[in-house]
């Protein structure tokens, strides 16, 4: 009883497994059921073809794939399927079958998975050979044809040549191109006489800076088409300022145009740099783009435009600070690149001290003079105070004061510019009300500045 029962149980188990396993082919995420026959189709002589199969447990209990075998010529397993393989309910085993036919004829084989048998068919046929002309390359071993790199918004046409080396004419059909970036004017089918060739163009249009793919099907062969669009560097920028001459203590606007239309919609930054002319000063933080208090402003330029927007505006306002030196603007377009000089410089020349406010007042026992301004040379020190009586006559000689040490101390480590507020008190012996006015001369390394006459109230 046992000798009979065991094979019966195995048979029942195999039948159950057969019923539970469903076979399909897989392309990407698409599964196509396979029943008893599966055709690899026509395959050009010399070509190979791989097909992925999926054995899936469609039942509700575990099943073991204990046999996965192939008999026949031309078909082989790619790799070694891990047999035995236990499939949980819903689980699957993927395996690849590789076809490589040696001669132009029909091929068949039997694929067995457990007790299920599928007949595999393939037909190897002589096919015309395809070649591409420079600058395209290929087809390679993966039947890939490359159009290389093409500047964005331009196109490249490659000539495809198909040669019939056979002794009888060949109808090349279909001839199709897919992919939005690729096109051909070639008819969908054509006859190639024996020993002859035909050529047709395939156009690659690089609409943007990206990699594009498509396919070319010529008869039974399908080729992958690839091409990459790239953006040309931006043309050199033209920096324009609202004034041809600039001095310290001013605000000016910067606007930028490209010398020719931008090939792409691009963006980047314009950086402001400052190098003080006088060594003791490391920097002047007031030299900046004012709206953001920063030394960088972002820019954008539209495709086909020469106008560069700075932080979304037509121009950007910057301060010249209160330090002599060189202000530099540098445009950086990052990966877009810039051809030519992307830098502009402005020299802020050393100048006599500029006084923005001056005042004279009386205090309890003397006079107080207030001066506000800046010295972009950081060398101010010599002051001369000329006092006048109420009738406008000079009162003695001007009083000189050397405040160099005071200013050097004040400017030490200063990075916010050279602006200063000087408060000078003058004790007066006698009747201070006789003093009617004062003029102050301020001298630095670039020259002297004299105030208007200030009246003491």
């Amino acid at each position, binding site marked *: 009883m046992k000798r009979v029962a065991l094979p019966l149980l195995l048979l029942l188990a195999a039948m159950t497994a057969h019923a539970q396993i469903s076979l399909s082919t897989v392309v990407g995420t698409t599964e196509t059921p396979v029943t008893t026959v599966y055709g690899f189709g026509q395959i050009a002589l010399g070509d190979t073809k791989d097909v992925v199969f999926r054995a899936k447990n469609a039942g509700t209990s575990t099943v073991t794939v204990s046999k996965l075998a192939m008999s026949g010529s031309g078909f082989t397993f790619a790799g070694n399927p891990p047999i035995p393989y236990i499939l949980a309910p819903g689980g699957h085993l993927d395996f690849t079958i590789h076809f490589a036919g040696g001669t132009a004829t029909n091929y068949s084989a039997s694929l067995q998975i457990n007790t299920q048998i599928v007949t595999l068919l393939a037909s190897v046929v002589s096919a015309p050979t395809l070649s591409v002309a420079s600058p395209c390359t290929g087809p390679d071993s993966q039947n890939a044809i490359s159009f290389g790199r093409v500047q964005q918004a331009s196109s490249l046409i490659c000539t495809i040549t198909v040669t019939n080396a056979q002794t009888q004419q060949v109808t090349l059909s279909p001839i199709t191109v897919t992919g939005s970036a690729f096109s051909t004017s070639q008819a969908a089918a054509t006859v190639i006489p024996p020993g002859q060739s035909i050529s047709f163009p395939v156009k690659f249009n690089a609409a943007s800076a990206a990699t594009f793919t498509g396919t070319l099907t010529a008869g039974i062969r399908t080729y992958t088409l690839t091409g990459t669009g790239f953006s040309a560097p931006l043309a050199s920028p033209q920096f324009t300022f609202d004034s041809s001459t600039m001095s310290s203590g001013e605000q000016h606007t910067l606007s930028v145009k490209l010398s020719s239309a931008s090939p792409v919609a691009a963006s980047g930054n314009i950086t402001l740099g400052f190098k003080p002319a006088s060594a003791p000063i490391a920097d002047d933080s*007031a030299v900046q783009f004012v709206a953001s*208090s920063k030394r960088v402003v972002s820019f954008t330029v539209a495709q086909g435009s020469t106008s560069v927007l700075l932080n979304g505006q037509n121009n950007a306002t910057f301060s010249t600070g209160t330090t002599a030196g060189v202000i530099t603007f540098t445009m950086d377009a990052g990966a877009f690149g810039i051809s030519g000089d992307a830098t502009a410089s402005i020299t802020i020349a050393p100048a006599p001290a500029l006084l923005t*406010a001056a005042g004279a007042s009386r205090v309890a026992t003397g006079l107080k003079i207030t001066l506000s301004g800046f010295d972009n040379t950081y060398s101010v020190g010599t002051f001369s105070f000329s006092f006048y009586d109420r009738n406008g006559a000079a009162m003695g000689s001007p009083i000189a*004061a050397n405040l160099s040490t005071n200013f050097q101390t004040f400017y030490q480590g200063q990075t916010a*510019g050279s*602006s*200063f*507020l000087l*408060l000078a008190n003058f004790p007066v012996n006698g009747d201070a009300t006789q003093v009617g006015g004062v003029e102050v001369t301020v001298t630095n390394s670039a020259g002297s500045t004299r105030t208007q006459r200030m009246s003491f109230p």
Partner: protein
Amino acid sequence: MRRLFRIFTVLSPLPFVVLPVTALAQIHQPVLGMMRDGNSALRPVYGVAASATLGDPVTENVDTFACSNARCFLQSAGTVLTLDADGLRSIADAANGPLALTNEGALLYSSQTGELLRWAPATGWTASAFAIDGLVLSLRSAGGGIGDGIDVALRRDGGLWLEHYSADGSASVFAAVAEDSEQPIHAVHLMESGYLIATEHTVTLVRTDGSTQEFPAEGVRAFFAMADSSIEAVSSQGNWILHLGDSPSWNLLPGVEPLATTAVAVVAQ
């Protein structure tokens, strides 16, 4: 705060000391005044008008403010605060309305109560009924004190009027501001030397002698007194400084990085 204290120390009268001339010279960084930055923080502005730098915020959430060289008044969430050499302190808990400076302190007109509030360090607040017909946009003390009454800029009957109110409450119109329907006036600011009006593209300085000067600025919606001689014009595209003097200067004030908004998660208990 320490920098701020120095500002007011510098701008306040110096004690008299008998010393050689050079020793009597003091050098400081000039302060243009205070500004309300794009994040509504009050900051000192240093340097010269066209090349200014900003100090650290003194306080935040400022709605309006007015500063002289010696003192600031500001409104924040309905509270009036004063800022001087002694620091920042609240002087009123619930007072809303246009602020103006006086020689000694500040004026505030409350449209809600119809009261004119006067503040001075010695007396604190004193309130008096002061009926003003219209929406008060700006006010100033006439003559610097309060004895000469106040001037107000107000909207009434669809028009913009500048009126003088004497101390006894009697009113007289001293100017009607012509307003183009296509270029409405968005802000007005009374000051000692005249007044400012802002339309969509222009700020106009009208001096007491009637002369005018225009400055280009987009979308100015408010004016604040930064100091005795400086006015801040606030717009969504940047803040400007009008530095008054013989030749008024008009420059962009440094901007600040917008504050990052923080998402607040509310968890039900």
